[in-house]
């Protein structure tokens, strides 16, 4: 275990040249009075056409900041963003606002966490969709409005022709999120970034929104990056997953592999923390402790302070190893199997 193969040396699949999005070693840090905060530290991500990639982690693990920084939406003079973000074969990190504008909303759509506040309260939803369409296409006002009605109907808003003139506060949360999705899709983006799109919604609405996004992926052919803390959402939607902890990727791979045979103790914790219907237990499972303050992230493995399997090796930072299913952990496969057997016996 002393010599780790270099990261992504032998990754296959999404890393190829037809990738819609290729992120390499993305790091975002903020200079604060207390010191440098590394919000994102060495994130790699590959998104193939029509692929759904999930980024999962607890609150504060840096997943949203990573996405915002890719689009140049981190507007903080104290932030420094390094690495490489290649979208459709073009490096987009460090582009000016002017150069980014055609991409934002045009080729990259975004869906936000809280649909209650994501829309401007004083304009009708139709107006807001038309605004985006007219920003990126040559359509006339009437054509754009027609398109807005079609989009609203497509995302399942009943009576779209009448509702297009309604204001955001006249919709329920789920309906608003549909409006936000319609807006994000209005210019047929190559890539859709969804930041916790279902977190603010109730469970039944969550399922509907996920179902809708899956359907739209097929009809519009957009790739989707979905940010969530909910392993259930990942299992439902994602083709591939990256698990993040304290700004660092700790495990990534095809959804099936990561969910069925997770390798990192943090992923075990995340999966264990998903409550299951019908399973009775005294308490909800938790991962002990909290995500540490980003100021206190240790040099070695970031998860070690909360990890029940921490070893002396963990003071050194593990690199992402493995083929298609990568993880950053010092545990050997034998140790992992042993732990698995023990857990089975216990339960």
């Amino acid at each position: 275990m002393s010599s780790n193969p270099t990261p992504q040396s032998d990754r296959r699949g999404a890393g190829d040249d037809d990738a819609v999005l290729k992120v390499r070693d993305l790091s975002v840090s903020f200079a604060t009075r207390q010191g440098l905060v590394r919000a994102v530290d060495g994130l790699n991500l590959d998104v193939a056409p029509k692929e759904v990639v999930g980024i999962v982690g607890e609150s504060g693990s840096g997943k949203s900041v990573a996405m915002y920084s890719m689009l140049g939406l981190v507007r903080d003079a104290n932030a420094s963003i390094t690495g490489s973000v290649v979208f459709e074969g073009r490096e987009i990190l460090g582009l000016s606002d002017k150069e980014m504008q055609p991409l934002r909303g045009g080729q990259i759509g975004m869906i936000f966490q809280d649909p209650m506040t994501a829309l401007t309260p004083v304009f009708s939803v139709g107006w807001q969709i038309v605004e985006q369409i007219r920003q990126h296409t040559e359509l006339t006002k009437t054509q754009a409005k027609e398109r807005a009605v079609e989009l609203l109907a497509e995302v399942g808003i009943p009576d779209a022709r009448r509702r297009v003139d309604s204001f955001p506060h006249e919709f329920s949360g789920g309906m608003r999120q549909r409006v936000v999705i319609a807006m994000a899709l209005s210019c047929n983006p190559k890539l859709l970034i969804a930041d916790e799109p279902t977190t603010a919604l109730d469970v039944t609405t969550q399922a509907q929104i996920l179902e809708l996004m899956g359907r739209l992926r097929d009809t519009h052919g957009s790739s989707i990056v979905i940010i969530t803390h909910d392993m259930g959402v990942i299992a439902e939607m994602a083709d591939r997953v990256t698990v993040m902890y304290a700004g660092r990727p700790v495990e990534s791979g095809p959804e099936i592999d990561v969910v069925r045979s997770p390798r990192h103790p943090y992923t075990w914790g995340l999966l264990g923390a998903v409550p299951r219907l019908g399973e009775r237990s005294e308490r909800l499972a938790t991962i002990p402790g909290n995500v540490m303050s980003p100021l206190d992230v240790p040099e070695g493995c970031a998860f070690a302070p909360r990890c029940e399997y921490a070893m002396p090796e963990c003071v050194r930072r593990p690199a992402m190893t493995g083929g298609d299913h990568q993880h950053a952990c010092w545990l050997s496969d034998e140790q992992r199997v042993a732990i698995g057997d023990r857990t089975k016996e216990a339960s």
Partner: protein
Amino acid sequence: MFTFVVRRLVSAILVMFSISVMVFLIFFATPGVNPAARIAGRSASPQVLAQVSAEFGLNRPLPIRYGLMMWHLFIKQDLTSYVNIGVRVIPQITGAAPVTLSLVLGAAVIWLIVGVAGGLVAAANRGKWVDPLIMFGGIAAVSIPVFWLGQVVGLLTQTKFHSVFQWLPGSGYVSFTQSPGQWALHLLLPWFTLATLYAGVYARVLRAELVNAMNEDYVRTARAKGLSERRILMRHALRCSLISVVSLFGLDFGSLVGGAALLTEVVFGLPGIGMLTYTSLQNLDLPVIMAAVMYGAFFIVLASAVVDVLYAVLDPRVRVVK
């Protein structure tokens, strides 16, 4: 929307009625005060007191007295002052109102333009040198007392640099119908003097609102839509921030038209409502004071009703109020 406007106007009328009752009670039903002596002014003869008592029905029940008062004020409009014997009150008010309206309207145009522009430029240049400069200008404008600024402006234009400002007339008021050009020239300095304070306030308020708005989620959405910063500021943030500026404006405008522009009127010798109230207070000219107070209160109520309607135009969330 129509029912909203109607409902708002009806409630405004109710408020005005209550104000008239309260003003009446303060002046005529304050315990221990003889209203006849008050109306008649200082050292009035017993004959005058008797005449006042008869005219205002002071020995009759309160509701009838209220009715009589309103009758004299609004219907017959023959309420007369006993201090300046025989001078009718209503013509004094209607004569002073256009002066104050001219002053406040012109100043409002200036302070809205300067304040909104200042707030926008400061918010758009946050973090650069322009922003603190404008904000410092704003606080300076707020801090300068109107009476001092007015005096200094008058002094500079009329004496020190009179050669440069020869085209400016002295103080006083020329009505718009008489000569629009002279009207504007005479009001030019008062307009800017009165507008200074409010321009400072509005620039600061709008900047704060805009800065808040630019941190809202919907601005992040607008950025993600690929809109330019300029469009986000001018369309999304400004539109939402204007809502609070409008409500502020309604209150300021109402109270200024209602007489709060007193200092400016006095400094520049404009015979407006503030001036009228001021002189009638000095003479204890009760009928005029009462009429002026009621006029002022009515304007504030009217202005806030208009603001509420504007509010509903600007903010769709208000329209559905049950």
